[in-house]
């Protein structure tokens, strides 16, 4: 096992999957000789050539549209949207086409593409280089969604995504890219979709989260432990399919839940998780389901005081947890 950061894990996994299956191609803006603006595709064009590592024109709808077409004709495209914030021009191709191809053809056609989407804030990226966009796709049946939070999961989930028969949105948190390092299994390593991971066990309350917020939750749990509050931290890892079982098992034990997400609060993925708990596990709850999320402002501002005020943080989670155990 080698120690890698997340961006290295993405890069190496892409390389391994391309070596393993010649149907895998990479397409996106600057993915070729530049190796992507985050270097997640560095070295691939040198290794696999310009036919399989395609510097696309600056046009997201066609990046996804071409990937869909290539998938329909037997390839396994991994498309990159340079920043999540620039996924909207491709919305029609993703929602109307990728997500609905199988359903609309009654199973006759499939759309095995992966859309890699660097996302998230805290990187001084301002309104248009910081967004969380997963909620929009979470609501669209027909799309799978993975959001790794560690280098090992990045490999396991990305390999699974590339081998999946259906479209997968693969969200890579930009702030974690180089900040989180960890051991990554060598060779074959896939992780099944729909299996959340308990990152830290605890009996007093459950924090359900994903992406960069996993690390915020872990820090909060650490702090809470010093106050003798045992918080369990669940990393969902994939949003679709959603591992309700792991969440339920935990909440039935703790009876208290915090749903933590970096995205705007209203209508975020956390709303669904809260709604599921309130509907299916109501009798196990001893306290309100608390959501800790970003405020409903259009996006993260650039100026540091505003950026910091936007992001959910450890203090916010700890405060919510204290209120919850005191309820």
């Amino acid at each position: 096992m080698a120690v890698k950061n997340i961006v290295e894990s993405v890069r190496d996994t892409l390389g391994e999957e391309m070596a393993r299956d010649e149907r895998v191609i990479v397409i996106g803006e600057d993915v070729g000789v530049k190796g992507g603006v985050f270097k997640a595709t560095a070295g691939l064009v040198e290794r696999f050539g310009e036919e399989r590592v395609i510097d696309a024109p600056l046009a997201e709808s066609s990046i996804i549209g071409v990937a869909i077409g290539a998938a329909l004709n037997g390839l396994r495209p991994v498309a990159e949207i340079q920043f999540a914030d620039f996924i909207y021009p491709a919305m029609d191709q993703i929602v109307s086409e990728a997500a609905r191809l199988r359903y609309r053809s009654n199973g006759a056609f499939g759309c095995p593409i992966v859309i890699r989407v660097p996302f998230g804030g805290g990187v001084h990226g301002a309104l248009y280089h910081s967004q969380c966009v997963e909620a929009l796709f979470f609501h669209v049946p027909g799309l799978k969604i993975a959001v790794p939070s560690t280098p090992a999961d990045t490999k396991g989930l990305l390999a699974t995504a590339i081998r999946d028969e259906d479209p997968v949105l693969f969200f890579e948190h930009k702030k974690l890219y180089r900040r989180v390092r960890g051991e990554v299994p060598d060779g074959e390593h896939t992780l099944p979709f729909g299996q959340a991971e308990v990152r830290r066990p605890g009996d007093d309350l459950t924090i359900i989260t994903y992406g960069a917020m996993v690390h915020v939750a872990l820090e909060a749990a650490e702090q809470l432990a010093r106050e003798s509050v045992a918080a369990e931290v669940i990393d969902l890892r994939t949003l679709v399919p959603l591992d309700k079982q792991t969440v339920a098992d935990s909440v039935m034990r703790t009876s208290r839940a915090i749903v933590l997400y970096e995205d705007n609060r209203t209508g975020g993925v956390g709303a669904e998780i809260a709604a599921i708990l309130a509907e299916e596990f109501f009798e196990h709850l001893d306290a309100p389901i608390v959501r800790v999320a970003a405020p409903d402002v259009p996006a993260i501002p650039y100026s540091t005081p505003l950026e910091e005020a936007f992001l959910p943080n450890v203090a916010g989670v700890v405060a919510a947890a204290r209120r919850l155990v005191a309820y």
Partner: protein
Amino acid sequence: MGSMTEPAAVKTRRTPRPLDVDLGGAELRAICETMVLSRALDERMWLLNRQGRAHFTISCQGHEAAQVGTAAALRRGEDITLPYYRDLGVVLWMGMTPREVMLSFFARADDPNSGGRQMPNHWGHAGLRIISGSSPVGTQIPHAAGVALAAKIRHEPTVTAVYFGEGTTSEGDFHEGLNFAAIHRLPVIFVCENNGYAISVPRHKQMATATVAERAAAYGMPGIAVDGTDVLAVYRVMRRAVDRARSGQGPTLIDTRVHRFTPHSSDDDDRVYRPPEEVESARQQDPVEKFRRTLVQHDLLTTAQDHELRERVAAIVEDAVVFAEQSPLPAAADLTRHVFAESGRR
């Protein structure tokens, strides 16, 4: 005979003589039969809709020469098509059976296009390499580039043909798809069925150019305008574009001038936005009749053959309707199937 408009930026061609094509009598008659069949099926669907036996229909009427003329230059079983909702003539030529068409029309379980999930005329047939299409116009254009890209990467001789109306050329996806295909010199033909209307919106409110062919200049791609009521003129232009594509010379945009004989769809009433005379005069250029006459004139279709053809078509249509209408509807329980692969390998 094919008359071709030749806008500034567009390739120049000499006007070819009638029947100056690499097709024998049997092939010409097959083209004719597919055109007649398209029309007959379409008229029947319209009738069935008016009788309240189906919610919706949308026509190929007036477009048959553009459709069958282009499809006839493709290789069945090898080349890939991405038709749009008017392309009954294309899918019939590529091998879809009238029964299958009617299964889609009546939204039956066995409809190979969508199992009754999509509206009629939303084509898709994996076995025939007809890629599943949707309603949002233009999305298939980048798909076609991607399909062709895959063929190119695998060094396969497949040619891809994608179809759309002139209104659709206003969408961003048209631009992005053609741009991508041109950059990579992909083996794909962009066929515009230019009927002068997008529902009610006339061409001059859709573009500031006289033709769609001129749009090709933006991509450094040949753009050919052709009389889309003349099936052989269309065939010749398509033939050349297919040869170009197959030999690695890249994409072509073909602008077929056609007339829409019907309202936009069974939900539309075109009398509010165009004078009936316009359609009347367009019908003077009925592509189906015109081609039948041409074949008769050139002794390629005898009276007996003509008669036989019409009888056959009538019987086929009748059979298809009866077969499909008696065919089972999807089960409600199937609603939740095929959201994801049911036995996808991991």
